[in-house]
């Protein structure tokens, strides 16, 4: 097990390194001039040259990459090109909303998805089951940002029940915080609910057709207890895997949801940094996201082995 972990860690580092090169080059190669953004419309040629020199933007790409890499290795993620804000500081101040968004979406997906899966597995291929399956397909196919926009149109504009932005920290106003997160979490969770519903339905059906379930039935145990205490537990293993992988998917999708609902999280930080060509900020943010994704994959893999001793 230890050797496995070590191998995984080393390959993770390799992935991180490759991602950092790719993102750095891509960002640097998009046409765009951070100097002009900083200096504004009254910039003089001397100022432009000065800023480019100051920020090291006039140096060759490879040199700039290795300077960045060297700094990161010594723990310095760097500073924004546009202000004194450090990358670490920016991430720290913006990570909470993103974590809240992803966590709640994940929990919602698990709770509702499993419940839906249980219901549809009661009578497979019944009308209810087929209806749920169709809805699940829709849930997976629908683009989250479109769903987000629809939710805003209905609940925010027409009915005026919930805000369409207005993210507030929990500490400032718990009620406002909860209300501001409702629609984005739903929009983000829709696909996850559908995926988990599908997965849990499939594994529940598999498990409930196994021998030990028939034995329990024969013993006279009531169906609900069989379902919820015995079948569900065994069926959850693949569902946990799917749920873990959802985190990666949610990270990617949270960028769009943060944009639609104006949530000041990591996703919107990344988007605005790309737009302003703040390459240092982009690098730091992408590095963080890559680390999280790799860590989640690792944990899911390891927990799967631990949960199911049959797979070695």
């Amino acid at each position: 097990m230890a050797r496995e972990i070590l191998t995984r860690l080393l390959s993770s580092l390799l992935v991180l390194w490759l991602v950092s090169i790719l993102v750095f080059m891509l960002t640097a190669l998009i046409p765009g001039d951070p100097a002009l953004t900083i200096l504004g419309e009254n910039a003089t040629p001397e100022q432009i040259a000065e800023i480019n020199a100051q920020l090291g933007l006039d140096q060759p790409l490879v040199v700039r990459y290795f300077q960045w890499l060297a700094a990161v290795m010594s723990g310095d993620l760097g500073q924004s090109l546009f202000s004194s804000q450090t990358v670490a500081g920016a991430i720290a101040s913006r990570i909470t909303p993103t974590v809240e968004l992803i966590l709640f979406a994940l929990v919602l997906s698990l709770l509702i998805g499993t419940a839906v899966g249980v219901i549809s597995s009661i009578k497979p291929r019944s009308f209810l089951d087929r209806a749920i399956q169709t809805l699940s397909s829709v849930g997976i196919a629908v683009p989250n940002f479109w769903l987000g926009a629809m939710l805003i149109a209905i609940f925010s504009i027409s009915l005026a029940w919930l805000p369409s932005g207005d993210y507030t920290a929990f500490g400032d106003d718990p009620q406002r915080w909860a209300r501001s997160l409702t629609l984005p979490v739903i929009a983000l969770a829709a696909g996850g609910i559908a995926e988990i519903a599908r997965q849990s339905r499939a594994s529940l059906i598999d498990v409930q057709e196994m021998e030990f379930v028939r034995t329990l039935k024969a013993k006279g145990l009531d169906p609900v207890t069989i379902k919820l205490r015995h079948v569900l537990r065994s069926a959850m293993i693949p569902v946990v895997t799917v749920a873990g992988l959802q985190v990666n998917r949610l990270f990617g999708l949270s960028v769009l949801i943060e944009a639609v609902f104006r949530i000041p999280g990591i996703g919107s930080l990344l988007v605005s940094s790309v737009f302003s060509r703040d390459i240092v900020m982009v690098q730091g943010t992408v590095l963080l996201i890559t680390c999280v994704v790799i860590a989640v994959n690792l944990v899911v893999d390891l927990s799967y082995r631990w949960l199911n001793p049959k797979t070695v």
Partner: protein
Amino acid sequence: MTRLSRSVLAATAAAASLALFAGCSGSGGDSGADSGSTGAPVTVGYSTDGGQNYDPAKAGNQYVSVYLLPAYDSLLNVDDSGEVGPGLAESFELSDDGKTLTLQLRQGVKFHDGATLTADAVKKNFERSMGDEGSVLKADFASVESIDASDESTVVVQLKNRDAAFLSALADRAGMMISPDALSNADLDLQPVGAGPYKVTEHLPGSSISYEKFDEYWNPDHAGTPKLTLKMIVDPEARLRAISTGEIDIAALGQDQGAAAEQAGLSVTAMEPKTMPLMIYLNMKEGSPLHDPQVRKAISLAIDRQGISETILEGNCEPTGQLFASDYWAASSEVKAPERDVEEAKKLLADAGYADGFTMSLSAISAAPYRVIAEAEAAQLAEIGIDVDLQISEPTKVVSDFNGQKTTDAYTSLWPGATDPAKTFASLYQPTGLFNPGAYEDEELLSLLDEGRTAATHEDRAAAYAQANERAADQAVQIPVCSSKALRAEKSPVEGIRLTAAGTVDYSEISIEE
């Protein structure tokens, strides 16, 4: 799951949803009651974060002033007629030869961190602006020879030559005083420390910045909300939504959003900055058809200014033939907005040798209404035989292509305005100007600008600049389309919003009816 735990879960869910929807009347933003001091807190939705750098000496973006004005007072102030008046300096005197400026500072002015305004503090600020790496104000101080703090509250500046723009600069960022104790703060750009009516309490870069009234502000007559929050909401639709749902109290609107806002039940006010024209900037380099004044005049005649203003901008843009609104002090009363004349335009093109037209690229940012404006302009130019290659893209790329790489022939956008016309002229007409990428030089125009900069009296300046505008119009150096208004929407009546001479919105005195 046991029966008990299931019912607990159900009860919790029910209670939670009740709590969530309890505040459902949509009161959102203005339910934040004031803390006992007079006036309600005000939240404003603005369209840009202005570059996130709020250090007056290092921030180049014109829109950044919105964020600076509440926290930073400047030494002098300039009014709409271009006259310079007192600010943190309660009086000033310029010698007859224009080379010695004496500033008399107000007594007892405090900064947000407790420091006092002294001549020495002013000197330190100036030196920083002139010498610091990253300072964007060096050009403003180009004619300064020396600065002397002759006593505790007197600053004497020696200039190398008469420089009329220097006084206006002191009414702009060059004159914004930062606390001497804060000058070396590493986070000064994110946490302003000035002597203005508001001190910064919280700043989430790119998202929002909050200020609260500064108790020891030097002007006891200052009226304004106890708590001001500026939220950056880039998307115009999202901004309109935010004010409709009560998340913000005031929203800056695009010129094309007035009708939509009124339909949503908001009250819309149009302010009229004098130096905010919608432009078609040109790369007039040698070898390009745009180098020829006749070609440029043809283009100017082909543009349907009235049509663009009325159809796309809801009439919130007054057709113009010069950079400034006709009642601006540096404008010319003789320059009229050209009437569209396709036949005359075609004739001019043919005379210039382009009877078959030519191809040119025109860029604009992809945000409304600029994209639509560019499309309209392209269609109008097509009528006189100019084939326009439309390049709609994101702001960074558009600016980089036109101003940086200089590969685009034309770019249509809004000039954000400047406190002093010298700055606008420099950027658009000087060969080194950022918005003159082709380094075009019109000798007569440049000498008039020089006259304006070194003029002895304000009247002389105005006269020189009026002539400069006439020359620019005659030679069609750059193409002004219309003079834009600045719209805002509000739910309850707001008081105290004003425009600075640069056309920037000044939120430092606003208050809202409770």
